[in-house]
């Protein structure tokens, strides 16, 4: 993200570093800028520093180095309670000694909003998460999903411009989670709220967000809209982390152009690929190709593409698609997904087929 975009950015991280113990950096050189109204997801494995970033934004941790800007003002100059940031905590943090309604009216009370106004807003917020009848209960008397929704309502009830959510759907079952994903995105867009959403569920990240920031090892590995993230991963961590992927190790043989190169696989064959972060012959690389981009029907491939021999190890009928596991160039975990079309052949175990793909679908990434 270009730094000069910060002037109009609502939230901006500039070269932010964070260390808890003075020895290891939990966040290393974070740069990020968000326009108003964006739904941005931080995605990454456990311990990659997502919560830490959120806490720095909310003002509960201070950055060891660098600057965080909120609407053009360095955040350190605004005390936490004046930031107007709604937050849903990883463990909800509903106040156990207050009822649900009291929890919701707390942010309104501290803002000195009148009683009748307060009640109306609390009611609206509860209705919004379909928890209207639960106002009189204590948090301990609610299920995980219900607590979750109350936490969401509490973060939204005072109409903040920025909402931070730390794995809010972690405790929910699949069905409820999907429903809540939909609800959260709808609310965020309807209310025009800028949202930073943390998760380590990649489906959630892809379906909900305007942009996704993939975290690993304290850095943003890639920041892109979901489709770009999926189709054009910039390094092998992202390729691996998002969706299913076939990878093969090899060495760059020749860079044949701006957008093509030849890779000699460790299994012997040579294939064409798009160089993403490799630059010279002899470099080790890991090529990656999505299972659904592999083609087994020769007639659909251009002339001159490299074809590889593959032995069928397993054929799984999954209804809408077929999932075929192959041994290709020594890699016996090579997966191909084909649409269940009327003319699609159902392969037998032990059969040998020829597979190929478009060179731009096969990305040569760092090893």
């Amino acid at each position, binding site marked *: 993200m270009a730094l000069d975009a910060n002037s109009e950015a609502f939230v901006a991280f500039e070269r932010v570093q964070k260390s808890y113990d003075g020895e290891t950096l939990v966040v290393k050189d974070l740069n990020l800028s968000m326009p108003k109204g964006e739904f941005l997801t931080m995605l990454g494995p456990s311990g990659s520093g997502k919560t830490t970033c959120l*806490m720095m934004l909310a003002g509960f941790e201070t950055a060891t180095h660098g600057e965080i800007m909120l609407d053009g003002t360095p955040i350190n100059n605004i005390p936490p309670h004046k930031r107007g940031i709604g937050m849903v*905590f990883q463990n909800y*943090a509903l*106040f156990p000694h207050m009822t649900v309604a009291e929890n919701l009216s707390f942010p309104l009370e501290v803002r000195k909003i009148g009683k009748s106004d307060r009640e109306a807003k609390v009611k609206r917020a509860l209705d919004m998460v379909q928890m209207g009848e639960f106002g009189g209960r204590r948090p301990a008397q609610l299920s995980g999903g219900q607590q979750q929704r109350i936490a969401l309502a509490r973060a939204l009830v005072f109409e903040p411009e920025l909402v931070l959510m730390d794995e809010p759907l972690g405790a929910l079952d699949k069905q409820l989670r999907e429903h809540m994903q939909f609800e959260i995105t709808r609310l965020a867009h309807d209310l025009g709220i800028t949202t930073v959403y943390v998760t380590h569920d990649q489906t959630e990240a892809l379906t909900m967000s305007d942009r996704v920031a993939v975290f690993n090892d304290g850095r943003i590995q890639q920041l892109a809209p979901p489709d770009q993230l999926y189709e054009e991963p910039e390094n092998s961590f992202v390729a691996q982390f998002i969706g299913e992927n076939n990878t093969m190790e090899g060495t760059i043989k020749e860079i044949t152009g701006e957008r093509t190169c030849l890779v000699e696989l460790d299994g012997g064959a040579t294939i064409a690929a798009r160089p993403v972060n490799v630059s010279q012959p002899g470099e080790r690389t890991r090529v990656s190709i999505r299972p659904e981009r592999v083609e087994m029907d020769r007639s659909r491939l251009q002339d001159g593409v490299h074809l590889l021999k593959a032995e069928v190890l397993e054929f799984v009928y999954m209804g809408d698609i077929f999932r075929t596991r192959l041994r290709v160039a020594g890699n016996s975990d090579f997966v191909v997904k084909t649409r269940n079309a009327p003319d699609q052949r159902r392969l037998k175990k032990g059969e040998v087929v020829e597979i190929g793909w478009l060179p731009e679908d096969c990305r040569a990434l760092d090893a």
Partner: protein
Amino acid sequence: MSDTTQTGPIPDKPATGDETGKHGEMLSADGRSLKSSLNRALRRQKLRALMLIAPLLIFVLVTFIAPIADMLFRSVENDIVTNTLPGTVEALDDWDHSVGEAPGEGVYDALYFDLFLAAEAKEHTKLGTRLNYEQTGLSSLFRSSGRGLDDVGDDYLDALEEVDERWGEGDFVYRLMTGTGPSETGFVADRVRVLEKMTSETLPGDVGFAPSEEIRQLLPATTLAYTDFATFTALVEEDVVAEEDPWEAVYVGLIEDLQTADVASYSGPEAEALQAAKAADIPLVPLKQFFADEDGDWLDPNVWATIQTYSPKYTSGYFLNAVDMQLTPDGISMRPENQQIYLKLFKRTMFMSLVITGSCILLGYPVAWLLANLPASRANLLMILVLLPFWTSLLVRTSAWKVMLQQQGVINDVLVWLGLVDDMNRLVMINNQFGTIVAMTHILLPFMILPLYSVMQGIPPTYLRAAKSLGATNWTAFWRVYFPQSVPGIGAGSILVFILSIGYYITPEIVGGTTGTFISNRIAYHISSSLNWGLAAALGSILLAVVLLLYWAYDRIVGIDNVKLG
């Protein structure tokens, strides 16, 4: 809606036994009712559990429950009067104190024989001490009268010996008193029981004497005195009755009996000597007269009223005393103003305990907060500092405060050096309430900090963060979110500190002076110095009741579930 609660599978009906009994009762395999077999199985479990806690249970019963029960009992127990003066109490029964006259001859009669036995058994001074709690002067009255009891009997014996040399001989009197015909063994047993009660000992063994029915009828007073002499000689001194010289009381009884006895028709052993004694017509000194000569106070109706008032086996006197009232013959009344101390002490104890609890909260809360929020390594160091007082003796700590606070002590020196206090007007900070409060706050502080700490440790910091993110200032976040969750810790700490301080003894004793002592110091005084255990027990019982009452009130107001010790 996906939030509709899913109904779980309907639980199966409870597994049925092999058979169903008459009334639809489940039967287990061996034909017993299922319920009773379940109970049997559970009983075995309970029994095992009980056996595990048995050592502790016994320990607690023996060392805790039993002493408390004993204390409660002592606070109302009052059988020393009836045990020591059984005959007198009985004779006093129909005396009415409101007439304002001393009782009649019969009461003094009974008093003489009761007192004689008590004096021999050295119990009369104890009674004097007991009655002295209620009316000063009774202790010396009993002690001095006990000494003069022999004189009147000695005079009678001299007169009798002039008639017949043998009156002073043990075996002669023994023969006379034993008589012939059926004997009064039941009467002897009764007197043994009286002696047992008086001395609070069991006296097994054989007296070796029983008066004949005839003699008892002829010489009732003599028989009583002689039987007492016989039981005491045989069971306490373990001598042979016939070989010992009879007590002087026997002759007092004899002279009294001879006034009315029809000895002419008596034909038992030594009947002639008896008739000769009667014929000598030895003049009788009325016992009322005798006691009046011993000490004029015996004619004072107030003395008798006191004895009568405290003659029942149980008394509310100690409790009344403990709340500055008194049980008088005319009913319950307040003590004179200048003798009222206990209510004031109770109030002071309450007040100072509250102040100490309050100071502990004020000082302990921030420390507990620090402890709960510092990184582990530094928290441990701080914890050691908190626990440090536990490693030094209580006496050392209290004495250290004496050094710190006294007028020539460290704090005064510093204040004088700083010029804040004039050398002539050094502050008095010890041997008063201030000193007690300071020292006890210091000593009891860990009892506040530890429960507070353990409760605070369970409050995740995210709550404070959540509150702040919702727009609360630091203070609001603390007061509305953190503090309510720490209340159980305050409750637990306060109960601990308050109950400990309400019964604290050593520290107020050392640094309390006269204005800083607690009710416990008074209890200790009655236990070890004045030996008025009944009053000490009553004070203790009231203290116990107050604590239980406060506990109950606390439960009603705050809820005991809200108390967390860890």
